[in-house]
């Protein structure tokens, strides 16, 4: 029996059309239009200019590196959480959710305070007689910020999937003669794929598109594709070019998601 009329969904559908679909179409429109109103691919082609291409390459590289680091830290963490009595709904999960509830600008700022030329780390280093380190305003600082900001988003989805793996499956694998390594590579990892995929999505895309972390920890000296797009909109007011570059970035996002979905045959990567 139908509980209610489908009309209940109409405010939602209207909102999606006005708030999501039309705005995205307007990016497409501006991205393919020149300032005098004609159709052009120049805004898209601008990605091949030296500065833009370099920014895109650096963005891809930094996003990739921080995603891999997050994954390498998160997977063992998820496995430990799974076996820990503090895991399920407990203290440790709480520990990883809490930073996500804190404004990520403040968290990024914290690293700025730590890494600054006259910051906490350098003060400690000089106090014990070691030379100052210029970490700030390097790609390394940006990677550090990305890993710090996005790590919980990698741990939780993986933990959610890993913690739901039926213990009997592991027992069955051992019973059939598998050793620990085989169980890990042939049972645990394949079953964790949905969590890994959604973790990667939740780290890679914000890392690829960020302009905040690079601005705060790169001191305006390191330009990522996000910074360039942001500047086109807020400083140069060139919406056409900004939209064109956004379209190119969207293409990269879509490609990376399609690649990821190939791995996740269940298609059910859960955020929860």
């Amino acid at each position, binding site marked *: 029996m139908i509980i209610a009329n489908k009309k209940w969904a109409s405010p939602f559908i209207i909102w999606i059309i006005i708030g999501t679909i039309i705005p*995205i179409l307007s990016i497409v429109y501006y991205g393919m239009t020149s300032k005098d109103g004609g159709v052009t691919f120049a805004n898209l082609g601008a990605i091949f200019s030296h500065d833009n291409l370099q920014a895109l390459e650096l963005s891809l590289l930094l996003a990739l590196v921080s995603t891999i680091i997050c994954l390498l830290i998160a997977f063992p963490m998820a496995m430990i959480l799974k076996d820990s009595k503090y895991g399920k709904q407990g203290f440790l999960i709480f520990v990883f959710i809490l930073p996500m509830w804190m404004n990520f600008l403040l968290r990024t700022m914290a690293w700025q305070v730590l890494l600054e030329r006259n910051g906490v780390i350098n003060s400690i280093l000089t106090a014990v007689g070691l030379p100052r380190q210029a970490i700030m305003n390097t790609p390394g600082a940006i990677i550090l910020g990305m890993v710090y900001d996005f790590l919980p988003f990698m741990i939780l989805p993986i933990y959610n999937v890993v913690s739901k793996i039926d213990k009997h499956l592991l027992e069955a694998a051992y019973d059939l003669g598998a050793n620990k390594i085989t169980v890990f590579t042939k049972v645990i990892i394949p079953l964790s794929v949905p969590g890994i995929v959604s973790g990667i999505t939740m780290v890679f895309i914000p890392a690829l598109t960020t302009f905040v972390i690079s601005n705060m920890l790169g001191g305006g000296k390191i330009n990522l594709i996000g910074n360039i797009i942001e500047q086109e909109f807020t400083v140069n007011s060139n919406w056409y070019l900004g939209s064109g570059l956004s379209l190119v970035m969207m293409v990269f996002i879509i490609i990376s998601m399609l690649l990821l979905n190939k791995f996740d045959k269940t298609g059910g990567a859960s955020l929860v």
Partner: protein
Amino acid sequence: MKKALSSIYIIIIMLFLYLPIFALMVLSFNEAKSMAVFTGFSLNWYVELFNSRLIMYAVVNTFTIAIISATVATIIGTAAVVGLDAMRPKTQNVILAANNIPMLNADIVTGISLMLFFLILRVPQGYMTILFAHITFSIPYVVLSVRPRMNRKTDRLFEAAMDLGASRKYAFRKVVLPELRPGILSGFLLAFTMSVDDFIITYFTKGAGINTISTIIYSQVKIGIRPSLFALSTIIFVVAFVALLIVNIKSKKQEVELVL
């Protein structure tokens, strides 16, 4: 051995996650403006924080926007789930795919797209445009939290209520809504926290002359960090800690699904 290794691992990661925050908390009580040396205890930076009208307005904006946008998103999203239930599965899938766009899209793209949309319509950007943007990106989360609750079991309970003589309205109010409640609650919470936390989309849709906590932090960091921001960090951390604690305890009692 294995246990010791895991404990060390956990401790290292926890230090990594929390040391920077604790550094800010310590510095917020520092007498000097220094970002490195602790010269003595003081509450000066808290006084400066509460005396800053700019920051206080931003706090008010942040929370009123979060409450209003989460409420509107929860109403629209819940109604959507109820309405979707009456549609054919194929139609539902098409609509849900569209629902996923803002969640899968990068925030910068969502922000830019809304900014362009407002510019095209010549809508002056300010409080209302931020609100519109926040409702837009919150609705999908509400839909995703509530929808799993609208299942076969809920259908059967509705039928059972009708079977026992209830009118459609009564059955909806007394049986379906209570069944959806945990999803609605976690959807609201999720929408609320997403709104409070958002910077990027707010940044592109806010226009001049209005700030939320996020945007004011960003603009202050650009000018030069003042320790009053450390005070703000400390307060936000404590509030988040307490709020999460309450949600966690409640969720255990009422099986509210605690989403990110």
